[in-house]
């Protein structure tokens, strides 16, 4: 992609659209109804959750089934930090992320030696073990859980901003990350594990970075969610349904695409809100989500975004590097072969 008039126009258009969307998001509480604000707030959290699962499963080949662990850890850390230690909520959120990272790094030396089913089931097992531990520690309220008293003072609009800031930062992190050298390495690992290792992609390090980023942001996301709930309880916060939601969002939207979790997250929130209005549906809403996800994997494995991209050949948010830009700066330098191939 070279910098000619058409490309500049396209880029300008992108920036304008992005600015309009951001402006709309950040002013929503002033002109939108309470219900809309609540919906968009939920979307922000679920899109974040989806992005982070996608980073692991869609880009690094690490099919995690234990994302609920970081949600729970984030929620509990926030509760302990704000109620027991009297720290401000923002500090509690960040601490939730840090504790999640510590756990993830501790487990990574074991987890990253595993592949495929070993990784998937081991992550699930660790989350279950964490649930069992948390539900027996009296300091953490055992099965009753903990209240986040400080969060009671917040109104929905304030939590809304936490959620929006989180999702915007997460999306930017994902875009920047995937366009970086690390991202390029991740694509290589996902596409061919051993070939990438031979070509000098630092496998362990790349995957570790992904786990660190994913656990941090998912932990913060859990904190934000439980800030809106005011009460964190072990069986809900460490529930596998968090991972179910993440899988649904990413599979529907399009696994391995940046826009996928965004589209999937919006659909998930609308769908689950709609299903919860139907009376007597009970646990059938999970059945419906499961059936849709399985059907999408069978019929349109690339999800909505992937299928649209394939048909129309354009990407809303591209993970590919903007080669044109670097070429414009240093016109003499030839592009490395791998990047040129990616571009074609």
């Amino acid at each position, binding site marked *: 992609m070279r910098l000619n008039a058409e490309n500049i126009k396209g880029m300008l258009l992108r920036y304008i659209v992005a600015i309009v969307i951001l402006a709309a998001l950040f002013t929503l509480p002033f002109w939108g109804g309470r219900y809309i604000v609540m919906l968009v707030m939920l979307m922000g959290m679920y899109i974040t959750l989806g992005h982070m699962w996608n980073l692991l499963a869609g880009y690094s080949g690490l099919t995690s089934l234990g994302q609920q662990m970081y949600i729970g850890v984030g929620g509990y850390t926030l509760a302990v930090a704000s109620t027991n230690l009297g720290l401000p909520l923002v500090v509690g959120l960040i601490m939730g992320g840090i504790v999640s990272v510590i756990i993830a790094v501790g487990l990574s030396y*074991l987890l990253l030696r595993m592949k495929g*089913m070993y990784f*998937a089931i*081991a992550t699930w097992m660790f989350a279950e073990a964490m649930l069992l531990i948390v539900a027996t520690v009296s300091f953490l309220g055992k099965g009753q859980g903990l209240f986040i008293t400080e969060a009671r003072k917040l109104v929905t609009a304030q939590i809304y901003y936490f959620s929006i800031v989180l999702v915007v930062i997460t999306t930017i992190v994902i875009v920047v990350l995937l366009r970086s050298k690390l991202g390029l390495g991740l694509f290589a690992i996902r596409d061919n594990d051993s070939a990438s290792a031979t070509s000098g992609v630092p496998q362990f390090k790349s995957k570790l970075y992904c786990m660190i980023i994913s656990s941090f942001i998912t932990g913060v996301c859990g904190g934000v969610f439980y800030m809106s709930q005011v009460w964190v309880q072990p069986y809900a916060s460490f529930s596998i349904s968090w991972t179910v939601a993440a*899988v649904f969002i990413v599979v529907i939207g399009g696994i391995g695409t940046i826009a996928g979790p965004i589209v999937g997250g919006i659909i998930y929130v609308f769908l689950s809100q709609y299903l919860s209005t139907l009376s007597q549906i009970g646990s059938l809403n999970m059945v419906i989500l499961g*059936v849709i996800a*399985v059907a999408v994997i*069978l019929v349109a494995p690339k999800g909505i975004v992937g299928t649209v991209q394939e048909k129309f050949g354009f990407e809303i948010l591209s993970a590919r590097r903007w080669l044109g830009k670097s070429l414009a700066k240093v016109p003499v330098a030839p592009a490395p072969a791998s990047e040129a191939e990616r571009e074609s």
Partner: protein
Amino acid sequence: MDAILQSIIQGLLLGGLYAAVGVGMSMIFGIVQITNLAHGDFLVLASFVSLSVMGAMGWNPFLSLIIVIPVMFVIGYIVQVTMLNKVLSRGAEPPLLVTFGFSIIIQNLLLYFFTANAQKLSTPLLLKSIAISANIRIPVMYLIACLVGVAVIIILGFYMRNTYQGKAIRATSDDNEAAQLMGVNIKRTYGIAMGISMMTAGVTGVMIGVLFNFYPSSGSTYLIIAFAVVVIGGIGSINGTLVAGFIFGLAQVVGGQILGATYQQLIGYIVLLIMLIVRPQGLFSK
């Protein structure tokens, strides 16, 4: 001392059943190369099928196997042929996610139809036991479950070695293309393999349902038991599965006896964890 001895007996007997819980998952992983994340949920599904059959016919749990086993075979065959076969060529992740979807669907369908209440397949045998000494007794039902579990594994091993279909399944697992050239219908073979795996889940599901309370959400507990057995035993080794079942059952029951019943599940995880660190390829891997 007697209490420890008692729990060693109980753990060993339970281990025989655990081996059969794992053998179906191990088989599918070895042959079809799918991780069936719904294995535990299929097992619990079988318990509920048995419950319904018992309710409708007034039969005892063992008689209900006449219906449970064929039903589970048909479910396994259909699931494999209509869905899983279609995603096999797309790498490891899509089949994994499809079975994860099954797990969620089965679990919540059971929740919808049977509520979250604890269920049990009741039989008077559960209360009977054989006295060995004053304080040590062998519970009859544990003994039956163990024998059934071991029988499942022996029959499966015999079937794999001595029948045409069993040989075809093994050939497919060794070399997919060569088997195809010899006239083996791969997709159908996979279907039959999944059907057989589900039959083992059916038998063990009924035994589990008699021994313990079960809930729609019990599947993940048994998935982890199955996974532990597969990991400890080494993939594809039927004898390894048997030994692994005994080790895992023993660790859980004896550990639970020493540390308290609430930690029983956690001990299982820890055993598995140690195994994953020390010898991730399993004790009896090829």
